[in-house]
């Protein structure tokens, strides 16, 4: 018995049969890229009728952390839907909703939302200097690349799945960065966003969310 316990302990300690799940099961192979590219907007619109309760166009009611999806990158939307379904992105709301969606459905919904005009951001009256510096130059001492490097200078996002941030609901952006920081959200491959968010102070995060909410795409 003792031996069995010891073996078990050793196996756990040295990662024997305990295989950690990848942070996302989505891989951008040519097939997946083609699937998302060929998403059917009309079918997507029909499926998206269910989504409108939380993701309708127009500004979100204050305080809600539901993200604006209009004008978001289709590849990013598709990856998030898949991750919700696979459980690699945890959400009590989205997990049951995505459970019945096929890969094709997700590509269709992604195509529909990405084709909608993005929310026009309301420029924040005062933009914090810290946020602006992080966005434009990053911070060498904390090994932080500028946000622009991946999310582009107008916050429109970048291929393949770097999300657009411009005009996004600030409460959502703030919560997302906090979740990356704490590890509650962990569907970024190789922990790229978690590594960055861990270096950000809570006030940096709040200011960055305000900054991006005020950007127009």
């Amino acid at each position: 018995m003792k031996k069995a316990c010891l073996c078990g302990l050793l196996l756990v300690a040295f990662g024997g049969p305990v295989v950690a799940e990848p942070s996302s099961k989505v891989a951008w192979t040519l097939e997946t890229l083609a699937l998302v590219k060929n998403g059917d907007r009309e079918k997507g619109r029909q499926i998206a009728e269910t989504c409108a309760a939380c993701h309708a166009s127009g500004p979100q009611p204050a305080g809600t952390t539901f993200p604006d999806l209009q004008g978001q990158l289709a590849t990013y939307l598709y990856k998030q839907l898949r991750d919700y379904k696979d459980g690699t992105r945890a959400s009590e709301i989205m997990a049951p909703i995505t459970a019945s969606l096929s890969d094709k459905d997700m590509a269709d919904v992604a195509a529909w939302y990405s084709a909608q005009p993005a929310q026009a951001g309301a420029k924040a009256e005062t933009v914090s200097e810290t946020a602006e510096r992080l966005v434009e130059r990053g911070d060498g001492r904390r090994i932080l690349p500028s946000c622009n490097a991946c999310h582009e200078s107008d916050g429109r996002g970048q291929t393949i799945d770097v999300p657009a941030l411009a005009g996004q609901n600030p409460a959502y952006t703030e919560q997302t960065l906090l979740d990356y920081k704490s590890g509650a959200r962990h569907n970024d491959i190789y922990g790229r966003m978690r590594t960055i968010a861990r270096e950000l102070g809570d006030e940096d995060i709040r200011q960055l969310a305000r900054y991006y909410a005020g950007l127009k795409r």
Partner: protein
Amino acid sequence: MSNLIPVHPLEKRWIYVVLGVIALFLGAIFYTALVHQVHPPGAIETIDSATLHLGGEFAEDKLGVRTDADGHLRATLVAARYGFYPREIRVPEGLPITFRIASADVLHGMHVPMTNLDTMVVPGYVSTVTTTFPKPGEYPMLCNEYCGMGHDHMWSKVIVVSRESWKAAAPQTGR
């Protein structure tokens, strides 16, 4: 021949200088190759960059420094815009260590200044380099192939620890 094409003595001197430089470079290449066994990477090993994270050698939980069954040290890393993962590795001074690195996206380079660790990381291929770190200390690991807007922020940390403290912290064995 020299009667047909007149060559100015100064030009002749320069030709000798150039030939000398070429001979010097070739000599250096042959010397390092034959005496110090410095060779360009021989084995070409391909890998699918898009599915790196899904499993196999470059899965997220397989990265880092570990000791193989035969006692040889191996560091497995992934280069992706904009960093090397894991972001910090500890390696011992004076022991040979083999780096295996793959890119998850575009062309990167892996360079650790003040050491001879320097290789291109081409998407679709595994780069393998074996080196020995002569001196303990903290070194940056830099990307030296332009890979995008955040290229100048793409660096990670390599901590070379003395052999004694490496042995003291032995539990890394078997990871």
